[in-house]
C-alpha cells in the first residue's frame, strides 16, 4: 500500500484507522439501504412473521450464499451483504493494524494482533467452544 512508510507513526496509523472505519460504515449502510428499498418494495405489504422464527435460510447464513443471492438482486441478500460489510469493518481494522505493526517492526504487537485475528477467523468459520 502507498500509505506505508518505514516511519509510519502512531498518529498517522490512528488517522488511517479512523478513515477505514468511517468508509466501512458508509459502505455498509448504503448497501443495506439499497437492499432495504428492494425488500420493502417487493414484500412490504406481506404480513410480518417475526413471532414465528425458523432460522434464516442456508443461503443467508454464509458469505458465499449471500454473495450469489445478492448478485441476482435479492433484497434480503443485499441487506444481509450490507450487514456482512459492517461485520467485516472491525475485522479489516484488525488486519490493517497487523500490517501497520509489521511495518513498524513491532514484533510483540504483530503476535498480539495475529492472536485477535485468529480468534475472529475461528468465529467467522463457525467454530465455537
Amino acid at each position, binding site marked *: 500500500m502507498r500509505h506505508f512508510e518505514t516511519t509510519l507513526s*502512531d*498518529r498517522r*496509523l*490512528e488517522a488511517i484507522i*479512523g*478513515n477505514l*472505519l*468511517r468508509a466501512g*460504515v458508509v459502505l*455498509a*449502510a448504503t448497501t*443495506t*439501504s439499497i*437492499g*432495504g428499498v428492494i*425488500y*420493502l418494495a417487493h*414484500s*412490504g*405489504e*406481506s*404480513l*410480518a412473521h*417475526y*413471532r*414465528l*422464527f425458523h*432460522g*434464516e*435460510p442456508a443461503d*443467508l*447464513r*454464509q458469505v458465499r450464499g449471500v454473495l450469489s443471492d445478492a448478485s441476482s438482486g435479492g433484497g*434480503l441478500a443485499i*441487506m*444481509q451483504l*450490507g*450487514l*456482512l460489510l*459492517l*461485520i467485516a*469493518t*472491525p475485522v479489516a*481494522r*484488525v488486519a490493517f493494524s497487523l500490517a501497520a505493526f509489521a511495518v513498524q517492526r*513491532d514484533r*510483540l*504487537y504483530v503476535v*498480539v*494482533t495475529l492472536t*485477535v485475528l485468529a*480468534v*475472529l477467523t*475461528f*468465529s467467522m*468459520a*463457525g*467454530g*465455537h*467452544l
Partner: protein
Amino acid sequence: MKRNHDPAARRAGFLRLDMNILELTGVVFGGALLAGLIGSLTGLGGGLIITPLLTLVLGVDIHYAIGAALVSVIATSCGAASAYVREGFSNIRLGMFMEVATTTGALIGASLALRVSTTAIADLFGAVLLYSAAASLWPRAQSAAADSADPAASSLELDSSYPIPSGIASYHVHRVVGGASVMLGAGMLSGLLGIGSGAFKVIAFDKIMRVPFKVSTTTSNFMIGVTAAASVGLYLQRGYIDPGLGMPVVLGVLSGSFLGARILPGMKTSALRDVFAIVIAVLAIEMIFRGLKGTI
C-alpha cells in the same frame, strides 16, 4: 390446549397487532433511532435498548434480537471510534492487547448463548440492565492517580499519552492482569447478551488499570466493534442474523447516533440520563419477570 405449548404464542409482545413488513420495519427503525440518539447522549449503549424493544414490545425471539443488537453495536462502535481515534484519545496498543481477552470471552459467551435457555438469558440480561442503570445513576468517583507503573505495562508498551487542553499528558497503565480478567468477563457478556458491555470495559480501564477517563471510554468504544464481531460469526452461522430486522436496527441506530453527535455539544444531558436510567430499570425488571415466568 395446543396453543399453550407454542412458544411463539406465549411470547406475545406489548404490541399485539398484526403488522405488515413495512409497518414493522418503521416501528423497529423508529425504536432504533431513539436508542441510537439516547445512547449517544447518555453513553448507555444502544444494544441495551434494542433487545428489550424487540423482545418485550414486538415479541421477537431473544436470539434474533441479540443478533440484530450485536450488528447495531458494531455500527455504533465503528461510527464513534472513527471520530475519536482521529483525535488521539484512544490507545491502540492497549485496545488491541485487551481485545485478545474480549474476543476470547465473546466466543465463550456466544457458545454459551446457544446452549443455555432463553429464560436464563433474559434473566441475566435483566440483571445487567439493572446494573447499567444503577451505574449511570450513581456519580462516578474519580480514581486517585498514583503513579507507580506496572512493569508488565511498560514491557507491553501500554503506557502512552493523550491530548489535554494544556498540551500532551502521559499516563501509566496499572494492574494489567486484573484488567484483562474483567475484559474477559465483559467479552463473555457481550457474546451472550448482544451488548457492547462498554460499562464493564470502562470499569476495567478506569477503576482497575487507572487509565485516564477520556482514554478509557474512547478505547473501550474502539474495542466494542471487534468484540461484537467475534461473536456475531456464530450467530450468523446459526441463522440468527435476520436481514429484515438488522436493516432497520442498523440504519436506525446509525441515524440516531449521528443526530446525537450533532446535538451533543452544548446539551445538558444529566436529566435525560436519569430518566433514561429509570426507563432501563423498568425494562430490566420486566425482562427478569418474563424470564422467571418463562414467557420470553
